[in-house]
């Protein structure tokens, strides 16, 4: 698509990231003073806290629920939103939407320099070591699915919808397009070829790790220590991005499961497409997709072996590793942050 | 078969009639819709200051009749007058004192406070209340237990608290439902004497339910014998033993004869 640098992620044509007159700083300071900045918490707050710190503000926020009612009613004036999900609902008029159109604007974490990497693919180090071929096969088939999905977002949306998603088909289509942008654009706004999906850019990874070290607050002294000592090599490995059946050999474990970070929706279209298109079958895997969003988080589920793979945000993985879970990122799907703060223009 | 003895009183024309029962009947409606006839057509006049016993076997309607007089139950037929008024009016004027078949004490009150309960309701001044309660407790021999809770008392002691409570309000009409049946013979005999003394002093009207023939004869001016299925008044026996009654009287032939007479009026049912 024709996404230009700087506006790549704020995909809706309506919402723009520079509102006439007011600067981001003024808006953030005003909202902070009123105590009306919102986020979901539970590990999604670090970018917001980094942003607030950047402007010398206290890091308090209101907990948002999973609707945008608080934003609608002005209980929250600067609300967290994912470009592909909540922002779409705020802007658009379809079923479930609030139809604000271009009367809202956003502040983008990527532009502000406080972006952290989000949806990735990970497993436990122990699992990767004892099942290298399974991991490679799963990663490569999944990335093939992602590649196809980014090329054909409408078809991908339809596949997700039929796989049991309950979000409206309209919203699903919107989401697929927006997600494709996150996969194919990096934090600086440069285009990343979709056939490189899964690659780990060290600079973005490092920025994420550095911010995580600063904003993940831990009460557990030994976890704190562990967090500060983490390096990129502790949390990610590029060894599993490609799989050659003939050279590497057959998979060690053929029935595997992956737990998503959230409900079944186009946010995870790559996996649904890989399953529907038979990419997993091709490499000899039988994959179960477990939906997430409950309190048994994907990191916990992977750590204790309930599932084999998980999709999470890099900061969540760092957090879990600091707690001693020994998890390993094996692919980075989103190349830039999908988080924005949305507000109503004056 | 003994001879049947019926001395039903005719409606008295005297104006010191205190309680007047006219053709009183009671039919209970059971949960399953069946009717149970507990009393049929009981007519009886009781004089002011009289001591009357209701005597009869279990289930003959003694308690039912007492509750009708006390306005705790509405008869399904007939009328009741208390001093020319309805039982309700008499109750609202607080003319009744009642001793139930079981003690009916309040767990959360000490013995003394249980006795004081009606006095509180009748707004007797506090100092008076305590004095009157303690006097009654002394009468029933429970002075040492005034600060105990009901659970700490034996069944007989509890029943005595109930009696003390009823006497404390100095009611004009005292209704007693088998008050002494839980007591041993000695406590009972002592209380017989005490009850008669109080009655003589205060000129109460007393209706006393019992199934003990000796007791009824010893205490009463008249014994009303009820018979069951359905409950009705089958005999009224005048007890013309002299007053005051003494324990020794129980061994006199007159007493034995009256007991036999009441017993026969029973068996004639």
């Amino acid at each position, binding site marked *: 698509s024709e996404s230009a640098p700087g506006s790549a992620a704020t995909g809706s044509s309506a919402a723009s990231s520079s509102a006439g007159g007011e600067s981001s700083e003024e808006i953030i300071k005003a909202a902070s003073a009123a105590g009306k900045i919102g986020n979901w918490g539970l590990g999604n707050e670090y970018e917001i806290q980094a942003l607030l710190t950047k402007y010398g503000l206290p890091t308090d926020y209101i907990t948002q629920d999973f609707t945008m009612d608080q934003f609608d009613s002005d209980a929250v004036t600067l609300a967290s939103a994912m470009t592909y999900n909540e922002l779409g609902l705020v802007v658009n008029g379809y079923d479930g939407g609030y139809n604000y159109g271009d009367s809202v604007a956003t502040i983008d974490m990527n532009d502000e320099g406080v972006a952290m990497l989000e949806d990735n693919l990970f497993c436990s180090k122990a699992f990767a070591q004892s099942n290298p071929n399974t991991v490679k096969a799963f990663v490569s088939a999944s990335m093939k699915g992602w590649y196809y999905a980014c090329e054909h977002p409408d078809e991908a949306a339809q596949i997700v919808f039929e796989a049991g998603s309950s979000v409206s088909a309209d919203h699903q289509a919107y989401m697929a397009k927006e997600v494709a942008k996150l996969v194919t654009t990096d934090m600086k706004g440069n285009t990343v070829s979709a056939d490189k999906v899964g690659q780990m850019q060290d600079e973005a990874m490092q920025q994420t790790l550095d911010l995580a070290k600063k904003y993940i607050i831990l009460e557990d002294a030994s976890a704190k220590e562990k967090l500060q000592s983490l390096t990129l090599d502790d949390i990610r490995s590029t060894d599993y991005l490609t799989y050659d059946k003939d050279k590497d050999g057959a998979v060690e474990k053929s029935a595997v499961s992956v737990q998503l970070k959230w409900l079944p929706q186009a946010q995870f279209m790559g996996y649904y497409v890989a399953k529907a298109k038979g990419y997993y079958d091709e490499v000899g895997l039988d994959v179960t997709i477990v939906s997430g969003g409950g309190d048994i988080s994907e990191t916990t589920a992977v750590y204790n072996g309930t599932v084999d793979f998980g999709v999470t945000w890099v900061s969540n993985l760092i957090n879990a590793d600091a707690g001693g879970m020994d998890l390993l990122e094996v692919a980075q799907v989103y190349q830039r942050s999908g988080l924005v703060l949305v507000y109503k223009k004056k | 078969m003994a001879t049947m003895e019926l001395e039903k009183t005719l409606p008295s024309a005297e104006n010191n009639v205190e309680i007047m029962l006219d053709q009183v009947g009671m039919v209970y409606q059971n949960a399953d819709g069946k009717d149970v006839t507990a009393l049929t057509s009981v007519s009886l006049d009781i004089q002011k200051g009289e001591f009357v016993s209701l005597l009869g076997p279990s289930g003959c309607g003694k308690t039912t009749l007492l509750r009708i007089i006390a306005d705790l139950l509405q008869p399904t037929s007939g009328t009741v007058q208390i001093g020319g008024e309805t039982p309700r009016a008499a109750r609202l004027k*607080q003319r009744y004192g009642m001793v139930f078949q079981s003690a009916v004490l309040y767990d959360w*009150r000490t013995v003394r406070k249980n006795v004081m309960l009606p006095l509180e309701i009748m707004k007797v001044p506090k100092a008076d209340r305590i004095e009157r309660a303690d006097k009654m407790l002394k009468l029933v021999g429970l002075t040492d237990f005034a600060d105990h809770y009901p659970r700490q008392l034996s069944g007989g002691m509890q029943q005595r608290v109930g009696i003390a409570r009823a006497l404390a309000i100095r009611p004009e009409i005292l209704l007693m439902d088998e008050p002494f049946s839980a007591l041993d013979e000695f406590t009972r005999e002592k209380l017989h004497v005490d009850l008669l003394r109080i009655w003589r002093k205060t000129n109460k009207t007393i209706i006393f339910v019992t199934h003990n023939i000796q007791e009824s004869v010893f205490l009463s001016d008249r014994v009303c014998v009820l018979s069951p299925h359905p409950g009705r008044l089958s005999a009224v026996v005048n007890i013309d033993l002299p007053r005051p009654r003494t324990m020794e009287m129980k061994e006199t032939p007159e007493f034995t004869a009256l007991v036999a007479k009441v017993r026969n009026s029973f068996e004639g049912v």
Partner: protein
Amino acid sequence: MKQLKRLAHMAPNVLLPLGVAVLLVILWQTQVLHKLLGTDTITLPLPTRIGEIISQNTAAIGQHVEITLTVALGGLLLGSLLGYGIAVIATIFPKWGAGGLTIVSAFNAIPIVALAPVINNWTRDFSNDVSTRSTFAKILVVTIFCTASMSVNAFRGLTELKPFSEDLMKTYAARHTTVFAKLRLPNSVPYVFTALKVSVPASVIGALVSEYFAEDTVGVGRQIRENIVKGQYPTAWAYIAVACLIGISMYAILMLAEHFILKRRKG
């Protein structure tokens, strides 16, 4: 001497469970427990680690405890009062009241905590200040959580009188208010305690869960959830331990209160 004897008599009641507790902690600390349950020291951290976290964060934990206690006690109080009030009304109108109580007890069958997010919506206009309206929403959840058991039990306490005790009042021509003050109210006291034995633990659990969904990111429950979702199990355990302590101490206070208030009746 006699007191000593009585203490000796009571000793097994305390010593036995305490002994088991010590044994449990030893098994836990030496990781025998982990082998038995097939788990590890991250999901089930060692007692020393949990203790360490608690002792290193007493100030922060204290703040969260204060907030959770406010919610639990506030909701418990309001819920109990409301429940008792409903019971009183049901006593005044027995026929309609009893039917209404069936409905109230039906609320027990709804996962009320599922309503917590909706209650946030209902209370959004309550105040402009997040902390105020959030506390209000949380207290409301706990209130609803505690109402049913109190109203059902209190109704029983107000109406299940010993035989003839009402008749006794009637023979004194006592007024309804007198019957209430001198008979029904005191009669209901043990029932109130029965209700509290259910609703005290419920108020703590309710407070924790209401914090899960609250707008304000504070409280022991919220900390449990945050740390579990973030994979910080040792810290989550520290807060779970604190939550247990809150529950147990509230229960202990209740038992003591019951002992002192009801001991006279038991003789």
